[in-house]
């Protein structure tokens, strides 16, 4: 343990250095999969909204945020590729549901129907989900700027510069709908109550959480939770009294729902027709 502790205070400057310490590498990869898969699935669900948002300006904003967020996922998948995990396109499109680490709540369908056929999507779900997620993303990225893994800290700095706009956008929607009609208020509240039962795994680090913290890759779950809650409490009018739950399962340990399988079957369709294609 003493030897281990010494190693833990080390700054890891390069990919090569990260690969030299097996325990460090495992913890790092686990964390990167969580970051990558969260961004990827939330932006996939966002992409399904294209052309369907309540008005044209909301549509431009949502699609811009979604494209940008997909770009963030790519940065993490490329880092994983450099760490020896294989081709980044394959990591995004060809992994099985149980290999993915995204929070289960983020894979939840936007509503009934599909983007092509009878899309009865729920805007309140989009607003609450994206707001909850962007707050978490900010908390995580701020912690990641101090990560022992320098390439991750650099990426975090980069993403934070852009993500400021994403968070501000969804916060504006939450604030405005909370002050809108009774119908809007109750719909938002309903989705907040639902998210409270399902968002729990998003704030967790999974089975390798202890190693992630020991290697100073990120802050612990408690610190993340407190920061997240502080912002949420400052924005929401009514905070559910119960603790956050994981009713849909725990994505950090590879649990998933049929909604993830549905998402993969759609977003991997083109990739599967020709895996060697160059775009």
């Amino acid at each position: 343990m003493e030897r281990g502790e010494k190693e833990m205070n080390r700054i890891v400057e390069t990919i090569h250095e990260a690969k030299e310490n097996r325990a460090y590498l495992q913890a790092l990869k686990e964390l990167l999969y969580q970051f990558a898969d969260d961004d990827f699935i939330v932006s996939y669900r966002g992409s399904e909204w294209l052309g369907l948002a309540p008005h044209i300006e909301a549509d431009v904003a949502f699609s811009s945020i979604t494209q940008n967020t997909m770009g963030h996922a790519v940065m993490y998948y490329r880092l994983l590729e450099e760490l020896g995990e294989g081709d980044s396109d394959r990591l995004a499109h060809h992994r099985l549901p149980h290999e993915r680490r995204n929070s289960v709540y983020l894979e939840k369908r936007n509503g009934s129907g599909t983007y092509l056929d009878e899309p009865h999507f729920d805007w309140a779900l989009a607003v609450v989900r994206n707001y909850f997620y962007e707050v978490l993303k900010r908390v995580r990225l701020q912690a990641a700027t101090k990560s022992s893994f320098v390439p991750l800290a650099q990426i975090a700095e980069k993403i934070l510069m852009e993500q400021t706009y994403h968070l501000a956008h969804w916060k504006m929607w939450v604030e405005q709908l909370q002050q809108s009609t009774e119908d809007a208020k109750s719909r938002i509240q309903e989705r907040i109550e639902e998210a409270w039962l399902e968002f729990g795994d998003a704030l967790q680090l999974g089975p390798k959480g202890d190693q992630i913290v020991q290697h100073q890759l990120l802050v612990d779950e408690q610190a993340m939770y407190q920061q997240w809650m502080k912002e949420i409490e400052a924005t929401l009018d009514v905070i559910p009294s119960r603790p956050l739950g994981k009713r849909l399962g725990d994505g950090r340990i590879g649990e998933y729902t049929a909604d993830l399988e549905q998402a993969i079957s759609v977003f991997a369709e083109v990739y599967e027709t020709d895996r060697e294609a160059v775009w």
Partner: protein
Amino acid sequence: MMNRQREEEIRAVLQAVDDPELPAVSVYDLGMVHHIEVHGTIVSVVMVPTFAGCPALDFIERDVKLAVEEIDWVDRCHVQFSFQHQWSTEMITNVGKEQLKKHGISPPPENYRPGEQWTVNCPFCGSAYTSMENIFGPTACRSILYCRDCRNPFEAMKPVIQYGSVSQTY
């Protein structure tokens, strides 16, 4: 020819490589060229991407490579995007700002603080009487505004600056 002269020659070439989504504004003037290295007839250009999700990056990489390889003494040019240095809108050159205005795009505001609202003058008439229509525009790096004086819609480069470079509480 000295390396320094060669680097200058490459810089001049890069001043003519336009951003695919901002015609007539070069990648150099947008501040995307971080540094240039010359080893004999091999050139390497390290660039910083603007927005992470920008779909134009692959085109920019190709355009820069092809333009540099046009120089007669260059055998090969390697282009690499680096995240070790963060691009910010403060890196746009004065030439870049003027070129943006000619295309109806205002340069980013200079006193921006992350998370706060910002405003810019109209690129056509210079009026400060403008309103933000949509912080998100046709590309990740642009916003949509409207000038209430000359009644023209216009765009602005969305300011992004490094999070750590301002001292304020979040």
